[in-house]
């Protein structure tokens, strides 16, 4: 990255334009790439994954005028190449040396109450589905999910995807509930 380079609105607009001429689609692509970069750094064990993802994006942004003229290919893969360099630098700076965070304490009652509230807010069919999906253990769980998928008239993989979406919705709801609780 150019030394002392600071992202500008103009550079950001150029980046979006490179991702897609349609502004709305470009915005969606930007968000998706950022999310994936955060996941990538997280999978590599980096504690500050969001910061490293933003650093990678800034580096691409700094070169985007040139890239738009010379780079042919999937932009996401260019981001990957840059992110990999950022990761190697991160390693060299020894930030990664495992300072394992302590195992988190068991969830407290407030979090549990938030989950109860969030599950209560689900539509009844989703509430029942998610509870049934996560019931049982090992083979009984596999059989249970197969049965549930049959009842819903969908494939087991479609059921996995549906249950995961509800889970993410619940987790976000619990986080929002806890944040609200913290503010109060």
């Amino acid at each position, binding site marked *: 990255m150019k030394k002392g380079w600071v992202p500008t609105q103009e550079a950001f607009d150029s980046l979006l334009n490179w991702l897609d001429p349609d502004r709305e689609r470009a915005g969606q692509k930007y968000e998706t790439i950022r999310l994936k970069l955060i996941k990538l750094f997280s999978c590599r064990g980096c504690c500050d994954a969001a910061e490293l993802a933003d650093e990678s994006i800034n580096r691409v942004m700094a070169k985007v005028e040139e890239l738009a003229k010379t780079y042919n290919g999937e932009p996401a893969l260019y981001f990957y190449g840059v992110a990999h360099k950022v990761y190697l630098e991160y390693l060299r700076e020894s930030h990664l040396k495992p300072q394992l965070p302590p195992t988190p304490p068991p*969830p407290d009652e407030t979090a549990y109450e938030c989950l109860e509230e969030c599950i209560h807010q689900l539509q009844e069919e989703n509430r029942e589905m998610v509870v049934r999906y996560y019931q049982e253990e090992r083979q009984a769980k596999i059989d249970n999910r197969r049965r549930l998928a049959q009842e819903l008239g969908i*494939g087991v993989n479609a059921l996995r995807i549906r249950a995961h979406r509800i889970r993410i919705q619940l987790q976000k709801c619990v986080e929002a509930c806890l944040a609200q609780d913290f503010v109060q």
Partner: protein
Amino acid sequence: MALNHEIDIIRGYLLGQLSEEQSQAIEQRMLSEDDFFGELEITEAQLVDDYVGGCLTSDERDQFEKHFLATPERQQNLQFARLLRRYVASHPIHKPAAQSWWQQWENQSWGLRVAAGVTAVAIIAVALWFAVPRASSPDTLATVTLTIGSGNRAEGGVSQTMPLPSGNLKIVLRLPDNVAPETVHQVRLIAGEGTTRIFDITERDAKTVSLVIPSSQLKRGSYALKLLVLSADGTVQPVNGSYLLTLE
């Protein structure tokens, strides 16, 4: 790549078991394929659940704690998985899986059952009309036409009753609107006592499919029939709802 194989590779990546080259290949797919990224997220959640449920091997558990749990985001995911597990354990939903469709039918309203009874009498009359004159030949066909009951438990379905035919029985199934006749692969016949047999389709038109049950496989009792359709991914899936039949 088969889904299970893909899941195994993703789990290996998440636990830090893959080589650098393999990890980079995974990461490139993660960046360029949205579906693959989605699969990675689902597999990650499953891995956390397996850890919480004590379903990992000791090696996996060790890698999970040393490699996987390194970030605050994943620690939050672990917390959430524990919460969800606690909730599910304290709010079990027991579906009456052992209840037969016949028991479920008995739970229907009286009005519905009376209406079904009247229909059944009419059906018996029609069936007798066709079946009795052919009783002397085992190869002759009695025919019955059935309509699917809505829902998974034959809710609202009408059980048709007819005498046990002495010959083969041709069953014509009226298809629900969302099922195209060419997608119907086979029919599963579930006897009241729980035995199951699969039959191929012998005829089909725009609104129905038919199958023939040999007389040797028929006896008095209650039956439910389920359509099995071929889905776009090549798997065979049952259609919601059942066709109900009683042979007396």
